[in-house]
């Protein structure tokens, strides 16, 4: 086969670097030059994005775009291996770019330090051949999917929970997309998140490597991709299973990008929308909580996290620990004539608990949700406490 003359040439140093690829029939000079010509956008530099970006860089992908607006936190390092201890507090796109360029200086890295949204998604993704979804939330996943459909680009997908991962390739060669698999997102609160449920650190490593493999196969045009198949991985029992994935006859037509936070029923990250009038409880900051406690406020303090979280760190003035999903089991034992201050890790589960109790007839004037949870308390009020 005559190599495509439009593909970029490899330098002698690149030929040496990629020698194990060049002697593979399925890659060879032609394939390696395709990799060098390829442009891949990765949304997120977290658990999935970390190994993915490192392998794409090592494999010789010519241009990599990375989208993330987060900074490296110590709790990321258990799984986000592209970042290191020295990068704590550093912007993830910067930390990831530095690591990529250390692995392979031939790689061109474009960074986008902003949340992907309906206004910027098409513009950011348009220059790339393939998009890899390494995000961690439903609104961005639907946004990435719809943008890929509108732009006609393959979307290499994986998601994770605890010990379980799902992976596939969407919108490739007329194949199904995310909305064929799940037409609608779950309402908030009905599906537990990794922040609540935890995740085995190596799980996104396995799933991110599967995404990297699929991305490279698409670039090379070799092998069978996961398009049309949903791969399930169960790390705990070490089982892979495969399910069929097809275009839904009545799948929603995607004609434009929408407000995905509204679509998913969750508050936006930009925080510019007006907070709704609360009728179920009062949101109280950790500073105000501290101030009022110092002034003699004596609420009943209810921790709605799981046992194993309370073992990591607890407030020493907590009265009761009971997980938020089973809050109604202890409703009869909670005081009805005094204030109840409810907290969890970040403030989400405790808000749900407030809402459930208000619906069950507790006086909303007595219900307080400690905004930001014990993490905010540990970082803003009592810095002697660990965060997780």
């Amino acid at each position: 086969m005559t190599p495509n003359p439009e593909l970029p040439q490899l330098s002698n140093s690149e030929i040496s670097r990629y020698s194990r690829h060049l002697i593979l029939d399925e890659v060879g000079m032609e394939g390696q030059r395709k990799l060098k010509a390829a442009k891949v956008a990765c949304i997120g530099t977290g658990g999935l994005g970390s190994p993915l970006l490192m392998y794409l860089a090592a494999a010789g992908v010519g241009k990599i775009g990375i989208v993330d607006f987060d900074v490296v936190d110590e709790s990321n390092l258990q799984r986000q291996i592209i970042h290191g201890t020295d990068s704590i507090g550093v912007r993830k796109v910067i930390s990831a770019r530095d690591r990529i360029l250390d692995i392979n200086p031939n790689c061109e890295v474009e960074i986008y330090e902003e949340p992907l949204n309906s206004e910027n998604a098409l513009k950011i993704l348009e220059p790339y051949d393939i998009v890899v979804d390494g995000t961690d939330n439903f609104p961005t996943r639907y946004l990435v999917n719809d943008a890929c459909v509108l732009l006609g680009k393959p979307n290499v997908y994986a998601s994770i929970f605890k010990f379980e991962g799902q992976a596939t390739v969407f919108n490739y060669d007329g194949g199904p997309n995310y909305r064929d698999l799940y037409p609608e997102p779950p309402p908030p609160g009905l599906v537990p998140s990794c922040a609540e449920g935890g995740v085995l650190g190596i799980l996104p490593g396995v799933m991110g490597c599967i995404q990297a493999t699929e991305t490279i196969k698409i670039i090379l045009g070799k092998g069978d991709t996961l398009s049309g198949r949903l791969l399930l991985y169960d790390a705990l029992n070490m089982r892979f299973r495969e399910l069929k994935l097809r275009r839904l006859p009545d799948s929603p037509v995607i004609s434009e990008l929408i407000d995905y936070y509204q679509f998913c029923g969750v508050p936006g990250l930009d925080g510019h929308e007006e907070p709704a009038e609360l009728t179920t409880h009062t949101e109280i900051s950790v500073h105000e909580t501290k101030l009022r406690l110092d002034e003699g406020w004596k609420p009943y303090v209810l921790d709605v996290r799981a046992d194993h979280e309370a073992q990591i760190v607890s407030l020493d003035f907590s009265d009761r620990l009971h997980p938020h999903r089973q809050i109604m089991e202890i409703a009869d034992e909670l005081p009805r004539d005094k204030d109840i201050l409810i907290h969890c890790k970040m403030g989400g589960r405790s808000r749900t608990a407030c809402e459930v109790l208000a619906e069950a007839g507790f006086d909303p004037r007595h219900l307080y949700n400690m905004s930001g949870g014990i993490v905010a308390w540990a970082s803003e009020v009592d810095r002697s406490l660990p965060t997780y």
Partner: protein
Amino acid sequence: MSISIHIPTPLRPYTDTQATVQVEGATVAEALNSLTSTFPKLSKHLRDDAGKLRSFVNVYLGDEDIRFLENESTEVKDGAELSIVPSIAGGLS
């Protein structure tokens, strides 16, 4: 008809952490109803208020999506395997 239903990790808190549950039933609907009568707390995660399967929860008979069979009316044979596969996003909810 004895049917095994694979329970995904996010729903195992509602099945006493069991990963696979054996149920009886001649159709997908009967098998799922048998599951939710044993584990009533699972019900609201599988069905909406109108009793319809939620759109972010897929059910597979073997490796086939029941939406491409007869949905919940799909007949199941003795020893069949059903899988419940919910939508998962990752870090944030």
